[in-house]
């Protein structure tokens, strides 16, 4: 068995889970100033993700640690190469994480408004920056060889190229749409109606951005797998828009979730099928024998991957089971009455 390739797919799966789950948390956070007209509404919005945002974010921590263990070269090169972008991302995640717990500790409008701003910033920044980062990884980053691995040579501005920025905006719009539909599932009444309308506009924008971004991705690497994934991503996005219009909320949410899965998979598929690969981080300026980091040259030893495989095989099914159960426990809609019992 080709363990490095399997681990490339496992890490792809973890990031996909992260973007599907924390993706709607980001969207819910972004919609706070748009949909949250009253304090009750804002609290309903926040409580819709209250019990689950932490376990959703944990997928990032696990994906990061698995990246470290299974592809040390990829982890080292990407994290040091995207230093300033990741710094800003971390500050955003910190701001969001403390806000949920701190916001309700004081009964003051100014206090809450401050934490609301942190939640919005902590939702917009990570969604945008992850989109930019993964678009750049898929496209290729300027690199030079370093100790048998690679070193990113560009700066923060190198990441902000048109394709990268488009990737960031697509992710941002997609998360907003995904979150708005999640809210239409988790709320009722007027708030639900407004969530529908927001999702409608967000999905139109997303479809526009995604089609251009996915086409661009296909042009960069027109492999059959990439074409299929990109086409399916565009179709599910359009389907989500239509399902949202006819208020089939469950199906609409499944469709945006599928769009996130397929769009992120398109980028991973592009790495997988790129000539000279499969890659984890291709160089945009290959020189001589140096093409960047591949699944083969960036991975850990066979023994480490074997140990990791056993751990993942035992843990991941359990994790999925108890997380599914958590969603089941908190399946009820967050009504106005539900948040008004306290405070």
């Amino acid at each position: 068995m080709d363990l490095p390739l399997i681990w490339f797919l496992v890490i792809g799966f973890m990031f996909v889970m992260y973007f599907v789950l924390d993706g709607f948390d980001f969207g819910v956070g972004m919609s706070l100033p748009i949909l949250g007209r009253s304090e009750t509404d804002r609290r309903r919005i926040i409580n819709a993700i209250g019990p689950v945002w932490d376990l959703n974010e944990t997928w990032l921590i696990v994906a990061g640690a698995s990246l470290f263990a299974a592809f040390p070269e990829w982890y080292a090169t990407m994290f040091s190469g995207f230093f300033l972008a990741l710094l800003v991302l971390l500050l955003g995640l910190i701001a969001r994480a403390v806000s949920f717990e701190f916001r309700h500790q004081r009964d003051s409008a100014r206090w809450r408004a401050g934490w609301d701003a942190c939640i919005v910033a902590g939702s917009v920044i990570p969604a945008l920056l992850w989109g930019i980062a993964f678009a750049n990884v898929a496209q290729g980053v300027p690199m030079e060889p370093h100790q048998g691995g690679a070193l990113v040579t560009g700066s923060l501005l190198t990441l902000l190229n048109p394709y990268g920025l488009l990737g960031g905006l697509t992710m941002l719009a997609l998360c907003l749409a995904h979150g708005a539909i999640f809210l239409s599932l988790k709320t009722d009444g007027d708030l639900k109606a407004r969530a529908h309308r927001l999702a409608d506009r967000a999905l139109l924008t997303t479809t526009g951005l995604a089609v251009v971004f996915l086409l661009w991705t296909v042009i960069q690497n027109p492999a059959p797998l990439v074409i299929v994934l990109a086409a399916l991503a565009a179709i599910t996005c359009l389907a989500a828009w239509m399902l949202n219009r006819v208020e089939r909320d469950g199906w609409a949410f499944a469709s945006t979730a599928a769009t996130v899965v397929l769009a992120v998979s398109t980028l991973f598929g592009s790495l997988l099928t790129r000539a000279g690969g499969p890659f984890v981080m291709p160089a945009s300026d290959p020189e001589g024998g140096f093409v960047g980091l591949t699944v083969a040259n960036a991975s850990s030893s066979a023994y480490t991957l074997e140990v990791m495989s056993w751990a993942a095989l035992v843990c991941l099914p359990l994790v999925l089971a108890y997380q599914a159960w958590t969603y089941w426990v908190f399946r009820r809609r967050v009504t106005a009455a539900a948040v008004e019992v306290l405070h």
Partner: protein
Amino acid sequence: MPIVPLAQELDPLVLSQWQFGLTTIYHFLFVPITLGMVWLTAGFQTAWLRTGNVDHLRLTHFFGKLFLINFAIGVATGIVQEFQFGMNWSDYSRFVGDVFGAPLAFEGLIAFFFEATFIGLWIFGWNRLSPKLHLLTIYMVALGTMASAYFILAANAFMQNPVGFAINEARERAELTDIGAVLTNPVLLASFPHTMFASVMVAGAVVVGVAAWHLKRAQHTTMMYTALRVGLWSVIGGGMLTFITGDMVSIAMVAAQPMKMAAAEAMYDTSSGYDASFSLFSLGTPDGEHEIFSVRVPYLLALLSTHDPLGTVEGINDLEAEYTALWGPDDYTPIIWVTYWSFRWMMGLGFLAFAIAIVGLWLTRKRRIEQPRWVWNVAIWSLPLPLLGMTVGWIFTEMGRQPWLVFSQMRTEDGVSPGVSGGEVLTSLLAFTTIYAILGVIEFRLMQRAAQRGPAEAPELDESGRPAQPVTVY
């Protein structure tokens, strides 16, 4: 090594060291409170279910709230810890990722998912789950935090005492050969219980301090007396076990890193028996050259290091010669004043908190809650002692490892990210310092407010024993 970061012009190495030190110390102010407090909270909730005494439920909510405010910052600052290995120490990550990454991945897969999922169920599940199932969730959180401590200490133990690996010359890196050895590292087997029991002490002191604040004002006396006694016993029980496991740590340390013990005592010449003394206090420069005055206990260092009062303890000079022969000329000695004093402060603060708790247990025996104000003031001001002791203990552990990043395998200066500039690290150092300082002030005020407000009324329970309404709504 320069101590002031700006003394060298924006050296990414020194700045990265400061950043790692500051962010880790900060993160670890919240971790031991979490590790210990979750067990005490679980204990109160268990007591409520077993006795039906509603006071215990109120204490569960009260200390649970403090636990959660603290937990939020722990989670928020924890992500930085994982990211900065790659961001600031990329050559280190390249070199050890094959070995060091595995315990981190286990920590995520086994511990973090567990913690993050069950904490959500505990906070929001009061009225959704049956009382017994709900109680189970806090124990799940406790197990998750404990597993997390175990795996991260396994990673740290590898840096102190690398085992279970081989160097792959072609790929210029350390590769895992025996995961069992990494997960049963002798340093880990000592430092894990040491950390856990010290955390019980830390949380016990927090409970004692908060209870004393209310008892001083003669409010919530019945409940707070219970809390006080639980806290005092935690400090005493946790303390005794901390001392015993601390002894295990020092034996494991002497075996793996004799230089650290020599540096802890600032002992330059190899000594044995009577001469291998432990100085309780020393005036002047503790570099061995100009000692003006010191209080020494003969035999004690030999006893601490070897469990034999007549044993031999290697001195810094002999170790330097030995290491130079092994790895070439270099300075293999940590910063002596840091190791010397942090070692003493760690033990001193621990023993002081322990002694205060013993006296407190005696003074408050048989419900004697009418005490002079100074008694309560001592209890309140003792709140941070174990936490400070633990912090300087980690400063000792990590500074005593220098100049190594992974003992005997990689020097700290070789681990820093080559592609990251001093300006970038200065930016991140300033950003983290600023944000952490602001959060620290807010956190402290929120904790203080929640603690001083006292326990809320118990929620109404329905016939199944669940609160009729949610206990927490954001």
